């Protein structure tokens, strides 16, 4: 640990290269609350810049952005003479206590890699900011760091998990743009999105393109999932359709139900009679007997035992 006294001075903003984002970790850059605070109280904490001509910002990009939007002409700065790697460490540590969002974490890792930090140093930081220390995580974060703003905004807006970020990065930017456009207006949980993205990836792999027709006009995420399931699992969907038809043919009242394994894997079925009297039990059994006589129950067993294909053979 070393101690050094730093002084700040007001520097004209025109002397700063505002577009140089080499050390910028913040995302998004513009912050309404911060801008309002700066408008009322000014910049309380100076930004840090390289001792260069013109000045290059090391940390304080959000404050600079707010100052620019408020039309400030000068800004308090601490001028530091440091190497690039130290500069990045200053930027990281300056922001560490406020906590990084996932895009900012991606920027940290990506910039450390770019500046030649060792993997051990990168993993050390990843551990400190709550990321798994693994090569595949580094790869995903670099992908996110370089991704288009639409994806970054989508990730932050929906607080996506790393798994879903990975899925989105798997698609090419054009496909990603379409997926984000379809999903933007609707709400979903992370696990529902995961199911949707998994099915979209599978379709892309099998058919070579996205099933855009299945996404258009869907009113919510559940409908998208339902449509995609039909598309990705045609066999299950067809069995399910057959089962519903047979169940309908049985003509059972509401207190009798038949349940099958959703994947038609288990060969047994559940027959449920809800009854509060012996008469209702007798009546239920009679109705089931009727369905057996008409061959509907055998038809259902044909589905759970997968006898359809064999018969067709």
């Amino acid at each position, binding site marked *: 640990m070393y101690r050094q006294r730093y002084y700040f001075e007001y520097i004209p903003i025109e002397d700063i290269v505002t577009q140089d984002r080499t050390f910028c970790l913040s995302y998004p850059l513009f912050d309404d609350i911060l801008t309002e605070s700066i408008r009322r109280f000014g910049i309380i904490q100076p930004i840090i810049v390289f001792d260069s001509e013109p000045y290059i910002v090391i940390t304080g990009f959000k404050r600079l952005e707010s100052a620019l939007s408020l039309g400030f002409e000068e800004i308090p700065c601490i001028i530091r003479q440091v190497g690039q790697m130290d500069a990045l460490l200053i930027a990281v540590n300056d922001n560490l206590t406020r906590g990084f969002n996932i895009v900012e974490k991606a920027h940290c890792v990506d910039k450390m890699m770019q500046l030649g930090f060792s993997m051990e140093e990168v993993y050390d930081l990843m551990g400190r900011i709550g990321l798994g220390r693994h090569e595949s995580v580094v790869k995903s974060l670099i992908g996110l760091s370089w991704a288009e703003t639409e994806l970054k905004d989508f990730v932050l807006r929906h607080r996506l998990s790393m*798994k879903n970020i*990975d*899925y989105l990065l*798997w698609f090419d930017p054009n496909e990603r743009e379409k997926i984000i456009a379809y999903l933007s207006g609707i709400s979903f949980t992370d696990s529902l999105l995961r199911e949707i993205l*998994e099915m979209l*990836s*599978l379709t892309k*792999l*099998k058919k070579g393109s996205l099933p855009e027709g299945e996404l258009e006009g869907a009113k919510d995420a559940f409908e998208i999932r339902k449509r995609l399931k039909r598309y*990705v*699992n*045609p*066999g*299950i969907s067809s*069995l399910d359709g057959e089962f519903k038809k047979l169940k309908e043919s049985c003509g059972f009242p509401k207190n009798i139900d038949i349940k099958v394994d959703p*994947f*038609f*894997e*288990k*060969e047994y079925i559940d027959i449920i009679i809800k009854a509060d009297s012996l008469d209702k039990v007798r009546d239920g059994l009679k109705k089931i007997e009727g369905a057996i006589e008409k061959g509907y129950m055998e038809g259902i067993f044909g589905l759970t*035992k*997968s*006898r*359809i*294909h*064999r018969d067709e*053979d």
Partner: protein
Amino acid sequence: MALQRVEFIETKIDAVRDCPGTKNHICCGYKTIDLIEGCPLSCSYCILKHYIKSDVIKVNRNIDHVINQVDSIIENDKSHIWRFGTGELSDSLVFDRRYGLNRPLIEYFGEKKRALLELKSKWAQIDHLIPFLNRFTIISFSLSPQAIIEKEEKRSSPLYKRLKAAKKAQDRGCFIGLHLDPIIIYEGFEKDYYYLVEDIGRILDLDRVIWISLGLLRFPSRMMDTFIKEKRRNLLYGEFIRGEDGKYRYLKSERIRVYKMLYDLLKNKNNGLFIYLCMERQDVWRESIGLTIEDTEALTGLFDKRIRYLYGGEL
């Protein structure tokens, strides 16, 4: 695809176990010998990578201890003719020429004459073992169409080499085993598997094939992400469901169709072949090959019968 480091260990932990099997599926009652943990062949669909999270392949050099454990099982449980194999946590032959791990086991089983040792592999190097082979060692090869070997089993031996090595073992007087596992449903797979069975029938003596296993692709759910990430189109071509054991499997009707197709193709080549399904449900057994197998005990009984038929009073 990083290369793994080999590390030798001398351990006295239990290296002989029952094949772990899977919930609600019939297992064949196999005993596994964990001589090596990890495999350098790195087949794309291999579940070992997900179970063994290490860059190190561990080779157990304490063969005497392993043999003692095998011997204790053979001596203490005479209810079946036990089948032991080293191909569960690794490939049985891939390191063998270099490290000579199998020879003491082959010799032990040859002298014991009470159980069988199966060396299961995708690596077709057996010349170094030929002089030591005996009838109590089964040389087995996992077989796939060459198109799948080229894409999903890149580091392993080509099909023709595996078949040639199997034939060499037959010529030496051994029975061989064949494992069509995993069977993969991809575009045009029926034709490729048809020609695979043709090759098997053309190159091998089918009377000297002790067993053939059929097992369609199945994998733990977390491998789905890996397959998608790696764009494994062949592996993801079919329609999958989540089985009762939580693993992804092909839809039951598809499994029945494919098993039936392969069973018929193989039986047409030689009706005497002993064909079993690996980790399948009772109803799939019944619908595809017409056998009602109640449980693992029943299947183990069928193996006993098969072995007795081929070995007579020798075992």
